[in-house]
């Protein structure tokens, strides 16, 4: 794991978890798979009424209108796959930017979305990017590689540890995931 800014807890207030990628392109689907695993771990829709009023959403790619949803939340965590390399996952703050390099027609970066939210919608949303290391990107298939599933489990543990705990019971259950709901052999 790498982290430029160690964080013990995510800030309070409405939280958006936005996982993106193509579930039909193997480990490119790590972002949506993370969302599915997070829903399972948090017990279905219970997260919506929790202390974070958390919204969990998956998408094929980031689009400019995501800036509007980002602006509706105090904090956003972008979840995406990263290409094979050292480490298991990264968790880093995102600085808003509207440099041209942050946007193309077919994709936008978290920094670009944050920049649009700030500049056009007056948002002061805190942003983080959770990058989960994948291992297999070269073909078609609605499944994750073994290494991606392992990294997903570690990233999910890390993320849920950052969530606050509700009075009387923890928000997060301790059941380890095995890629339930995301593996389609």
């Amino acid at each position, binding site marked *: 794991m790498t982290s430029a800014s160690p964080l013990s807890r995510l800030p309070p207030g409405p939280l958006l978890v936005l996982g993106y990628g193509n579930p*039909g*392109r193997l480990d490119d689907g790590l972002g949506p798979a993370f969302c599915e695993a997070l829903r399972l771990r948090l017990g279905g829709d219970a997260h919506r009424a929790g202390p974070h009023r958390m919204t969990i959403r998956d*998408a*094929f*790619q980031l*689009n*400019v*209108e995501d*800036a*509007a*949803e980002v602006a509706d939340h105090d904090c956003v965590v972008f979840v995406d796959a990263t290409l094979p390399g050292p480490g298991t996952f990264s968790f880093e703050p995102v600085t808003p930017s*509207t*440099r*041209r390099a*942050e*946007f*193309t*027609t*077919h*994709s936008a970066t978290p920094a*670009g979305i944050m920049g*649009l939210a700030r*500049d*056009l*919608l007056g948002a002061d949303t805190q942003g983080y990017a959770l990058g989960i290391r994948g291992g297999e990107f070269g073909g078609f298939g609605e499944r994750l590689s073994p290494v991606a599933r392992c990294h997903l489990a570690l990233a999910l543990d890390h993320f849920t540890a950052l969530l606050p705990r509700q009075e009387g019971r923890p928000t997060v259950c301790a059941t380890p995931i095995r890629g339930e709901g995301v593996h389609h052999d």
Partner: protein
Amino acid sequence: MNPVLQTDTERIVIEPVTRVEGHGKVTIHRDAEGRVAQARLHIVEFRGFERFIQGRPYWEMPVAVQRLCGICPVSHHLCAAKAVDLLVGGESLTPTAEKIRRLMHYGQFFQSHALHFFHLASPDLLFGFDADPVDRNVLGVAAAHPELARQGILMRKWGQEIIQATAGKKVHGTGAIPGGVNRSLTREERDTLRAPVSHMLTWAREALELARGYTLENLPDVGHFGDFESNYLALVRADGAMDIYDGELRAIDPRGEILLQEPDSQRYLDVIAEEVRPWSYMKFPYLKPLGPEEGWYRVGPLARVNACDFIDTPEAEEARQEFKGLAGGGPVHHTMAYHWARMIELLHCAEVIQRLLDDDDLLGAELRTEGPRRRREGVGILEAPRGTLFHHYRVGDDDLVTRCNLIVSTTSNNEGMNRSVTQVAKQRMEGVDRITEGMMNEVEVAIRAYDPCLSCATHALGQMPLIVELVDEGGDVLDRRARSGGS
């Protein structure tokens, strides 16, 4: 590989065409005197979706076929549902089912047209075709026209929320099922969608005014930019009104005379045929009675506004009448007028959505109808944002699909886009020694006016760099320019 490469010409390649959905490339051949001998829009990837779904059960089609595209999946979702309605005896939907489907469809149109105008086309219109590409993108629009960019984002968001409420998801939803829908709206959902309607109407009027003003102010240039007469094809209601969800196929000639009107969608093959050309994976449809030489046609906003007799919402109808006045009441042939026509439709969609959201049928509980199965074959036709869309399925006794034919909107504009590319190339690139980035963009501007979805037309994935090469007779590269895709 291009089979028509000639040894005594130079060849210019634009790959990929940017700020369109999906990927294609343009090749332009110039002869020894620098005259444009040939210009073509190539679709470089292969779809094969019709073959892929053979052997699948018919009830999967509305969900499976929309995977063709992440841009306008609702069109494929609903068109497939219309086709399989016929297989289950569901020709006549309940009022709730039809209105939920229509709301989904008009919501999709609204967000798709907003996306194209604000994010893809407006940089060209606001900054000029040859403006610095560093600024000629949506972020440049955000910096110079922040309120416009903000409106574009929020209009797109509203359309996506309508899709989510009616289809279950913003992309690849499941709302339409054979014979109906699987959900209606709660009163709370309906009221949430209705809250921003007045803003959307205001912003749609402003976008229409921007497109109208641009066209009229630049008519001397716009009127000769990738411009030519053509036939047009669109669905119209039986009384001649614009209808993007259901209707009769109508084709008009360049003077606006009705060439044909087919009330039975199941007979579309009596009307449409497709020609295959060896240099493209995208077919060239034509009106069968006229043949491939005379029967090619254009579809999409320009075709719909040209082909209908009226629009049944007041503000859009007023805008249509002014639009048609540009050509003395006949069809408007300017390729760049696609933008104006598209914004007339944007306003029309906002008006229709407002009307639908005031209708309590959206809250109804009768979601599905089914009758005795009478058919083993079904054809669905609707207007997608980019033009007329055809889905045709044949199933066996085991309910598995044995044949599928899809004619997507962009395919119908294949000939028109190629003619526009050729004309702009002749206007801008003949006799010049050096190809500039602005010249390249002008070719793309002509293609962009059609809002092509090359992903639909071919099923493309990925992103490639844009490379333009100017090559002499001997094959030596005289000039080469490259930029990253997606600008």
